[in-house]
């Protein structure tokens, strides 16, 4: 089983796709397995995260388990 990363907005272009399956584990290890430019973009201070559809307040200590979905949400532009 894998975990899934979901990329919204411009992050989709950086990632080269809207989602990607990754090996579960601590977020640091997951990010380290990605291309450096994508990891840097995902760690931008204005990027929010949602784990299984719920916004995360604190970034520290996230461990992805099999079946988890972590979404990266850059600044919004609606209306």
């Amino acid at each position, binding site marked *: 089983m894998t975990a899934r990363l979901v990329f919204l*907005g411009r992050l989709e272009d950086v990632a080269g796709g809207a989602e990607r399956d990754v090996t579960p584990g601590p977020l640091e290890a997951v990010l380290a397995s990605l291309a450096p430019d994508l990891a840097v973009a995902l760690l931008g201070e204005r990027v929010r995260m*949602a784990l299984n559809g719920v916004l995360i307040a604190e970034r520290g200590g996230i461990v992805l388990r099999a079946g988890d979905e972590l*979404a990266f949400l850059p*600044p*919004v*532009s*609606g*209306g």
Partner: protein
Amino acid sequence: MAQDVRLLESRFVPTDEMAAFYAAHSASGGIVSFLGQMRGDGAELLELRHFAPLTLPGMRELAQTCITRWQLSGLLMLHRTGQMAPGEPIVLVAAAAPHRRQAFAAADYAMDHLKSESWFWKRERRAGQWHWIEPRADDYAGLARWV
């Protein structure tokens, strides 16, 4: 029904929506509406993406905030997702209230928060190339008015 909040995947007809809203709120003292549509400024297509777990729940929460803060009798909030051509409606907000100032303020507040706080991402295609639209400083300034 005080709150009518919808995320729409295909084109809607603002006049039909407003006719229904007027009929439902004929006893309100005032109704203010805002329609946002795709500009005809050279872009060929506009695409709005959303994040299903957060976008519609966030819009409902925003609508309830408006209803409570300005004692609205009704609030209509429609927002498109997917691809749109120039001239197509993107967003329609209408507020029905006992008095005009409440209706103006609620519609204004709803639009400011839809633009810079709701979970939408927008990109447009110009000369065959897609570009993501970054939020404008002006959008955040709109939010700051309400703090």
